[in-house]
């Protein structure tokens, strides 16, 4: 679950290479990315903010 700076929350995925409880920390800053699922469906996902 990601909370946007603007307030709303959404279920999503955090995309990192090695997801573990240690690398995927609660409250870490993330930024949006987009995952193409099909030709017509694209999902917003998130990655650690640089």
């Amino acid at each position: 679950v990601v909370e946007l700076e603007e307030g709303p929350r959404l279920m999503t995925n955090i995309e990192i290479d090695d997801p573990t409880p240690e690398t995927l920390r609660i409250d870490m800053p993330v930024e949006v990315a987009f995952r193409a699922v099909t030709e017509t469906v694209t999902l917003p996902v998130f990655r650690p903010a640089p």
Partner: protein
Amino acid sequence: MSRHVAIVGAAETDRLGKLPHLSRLGLHAEAARNALADAGIAMTEVDGIFSSVADPNELSEYFGIVPRYIDGTNVGGCSSIIQVRHAAAAIAAGYCSVALIVHGESGRSWIDMERPGTAASPTGQFEAPYGAAGAATLFALPVLRHFHQFGTTKLQMAHVPAATREWALLNPKSMMHSAGAITPEDVLASRIVCYPFNLLDCCLVGDGGGALVLVAADRARDFAKPPVFVRGTGEAVAHRQVAMMRDFTTSDSTVLSARQAFAEAGVTAADFRHLMFYDAFSFTPMMFLEDLGFCAKGESGPFVAQTARGADGRVIYHTGPGGPLPMNTNGGGLSHVHTGRYGMFALIEAVTQLRGEAGARQVRDLELSLVHGPGRHFAAAGTVVLSNR
């Protein structure tokens, strides 16, 4: 209002576990037959039907009756618990005189069961595409926040399944009755299902059912078994999708539901020595211990992990047999049975304990019992305070 109502019949299906010879409706029928026999009352006397896995109209056909009051409240695992409140209200209002709350679910064999949700639903659109779709994935999110915020650990949480298994070893009907004791370390060593839940953190998947018969309290002495009085009830819903939970460390529906039940019954947490707190996962009852006031917010980890040693050297868990706060004494959803919606089984155990019929697992000198359950990962909640006086 509800203190004028009593439970006069309560029973599970003959067996629990893997029952491929019974359909969803067959399980309802066996549960209803057993509860009515327990009360010593005929199906033809039933004029109110309360159900969630089956529609009341399916049951009127299957049971061959024409009830004048129906309730199909369908908010997940606590639906039966909430229906105690609805039955109490209906009886008090004169809308029915014999209320049958009945549950049957072919959770394991999946005979005549439906998969919930469609791709177009809010959860289908906004949660399932990310893999958040099974109970373990949805119930995990509040736990991770609790770990982060309060330092709660997997080892603390693992004391819940260990304590609950001790009760199942004393209940001949439990699916895990003969499976042997488990330690918190065994829980941590079982295979991972969905972090932070290992296999033994998760409830069972079984077939089964149960039913309750309720009547006005002034008739309650006319039946075969000692009555159990409904002293207070509560219910609430707070959201549907887990990501919409306001604060992942508090169940808003639980707090509001419990407040109503406690106020109606005139009780506080300190009055209870027997709890039936729906355990879909090891963590689930820990949320309720906090939100119903049995320990402070954030302290359920150390609270459930308290242990003592018995005279024979055995570990006594805080909520296990011999401990100060007996909880989930039938063996719970973790070790007794869980069909998908467990609320009815928690209610039946509370009645069994208050009647003094619990055999080797009987909690002595009991007058009050507290039943509380969630629906859909802390979204809905139902609370019932029961008494044998």
